[in-house]
């Protein structure tokens, strides 16, 4: 079973390398905790597709708002990859 939480954190570390991702609150919005903008979220979607063949349609982008919502939304997708 893929560690989806860690996968998302790894991608964020590459996209926003100046940010400290060691103490993220899973329930809080990622944008509240990190200097991320809408283009960064497009990069996250792109990296999920490139690295893990996981597709996130545009209407589902809000589901990537927190680490917890990322895990619950992406886990079933990783299970079928």
């Amino acid at each position, binding site marked *: 079973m893929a560690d989806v939480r860690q996968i998302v954190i790894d991608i964020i570390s590459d*996209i*926003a*390398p100046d*940010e400290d991702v060691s103490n993220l609150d899973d329930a809080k919005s990622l944008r509240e905790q990190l*200097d991320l903008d809408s*283009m960064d979220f497009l*990069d996250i979607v*792109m990296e999920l*597709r*490139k690295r893990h063949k996981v597709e996130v349609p545009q209407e589902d982008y809000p589901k990537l708002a927190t680490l917890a919502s990322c895990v619950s939304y992406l886990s079933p997708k990783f299970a079928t990859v």
Partner: protein
Amino acid sequence: MNDTQRIVMTGIGLTAPNGNNLNDFRKALLECKSGVKHHEVRYMGKQVAGMCDFDEYKYQSKKLRRRGTRAGSVSIYCANEAIQDAKLDWQTIDKSMVGVYIGITEHGNVETEEEIYQMHQNSLDWKLWSPHHNPRTVANSPAGEVTLNLNITGPHYTLGSACAGGNVGIIQGVQQLLLGEVDLALAGGISESSQTFGIFAAFAAQGALAQNEDPSKASRPLDKNRNGIAISEGGCIYVLERLSDAKKRGAKIYAEIVGYAINSDATDFVNPNSERQVQCMHKAIKRAGLTVSDIDIVNMHATGTGTGDVNESEAVRAAFEASEKTFVNFTKGHIGHCMGAAGSLELAGNIPSFVDGLVHPGMNCTDLDPQCDIKNLVINEAKYVGNINYILNNSFGMLGINSALIVKKYIG
């Protein structure tokens, strides 16, 4: 002439394959220290190239470097270094009256090649094409990145002018200051061309890509055994101001820009035209109100190609036939061809001559091609001349664009 109509250089920020500031660069030029090394090029393997090793994160966050471009990174480094060198109080400057004018050979090839490569590696999945591609590849991108980095709200754009770019960027800065469009110009040229595969492959296809077992000997302008261009990256941006403003703030003044010219061959896509080059140099000298005998140093464009060097040698011989005291050098033997940066960078390498009285040598010309023999050519060893008042810098490019820029020693 009124001080408001005289434009001076008060800051220099640069990165070259053999130095990341003016002092180190000048020292390397005087000591014949090459910056050309072996470099792995996608698909082609080991090639000679001049790469820069400045600290990309000195003035930029890792995130914005990732979002931007190498061209932007070079520009941001050079612009910040120039501002620091000029000792400008950046907080109090009216940013709406600062202009950014950067000459480029080309822009966008690095990013486009990378996107195509990534798509190719991923089963041609076009949905992996980056949303950053457009802002990265629009032609104003390197200058725009400088404005984002420094919060400049005045005009910015690049000047697409092939390898004349460095001179053309400076000329644009001068003109915009004279027009009163801005009070301060960050002007010069940059290049990241050595990060692309296409430029290497195209010069190879043209039979004009330098090759040598010892990369430091690959770029050999005017030498009998020259075999092409060593492709390099680099950048050099100047702070330009009106003399009246520079005096008011007690700025250190490197030089005054007294003459310039840009013209076109209108003869060929790649082959140069000596006659037009002569016309360009003479036009710049006339604009400066000088005669050829007033020019102390001519820095040649001299790329190390068979035809280019012969043509320019003919042009310099003809243009300076009447002068006995004009010394001639070139810079690409040390650093390769920095493309859009060549003009501004090579000029910077000569500006310290106003202070030290030395003409830096052209490097790697150990067996001078008789067709490239020029009166007072300085090769392989620096020459002490003493009082140097005027430097003329040549930069030429494909599609027949020629530029000549003349700077004068400033005596306060």
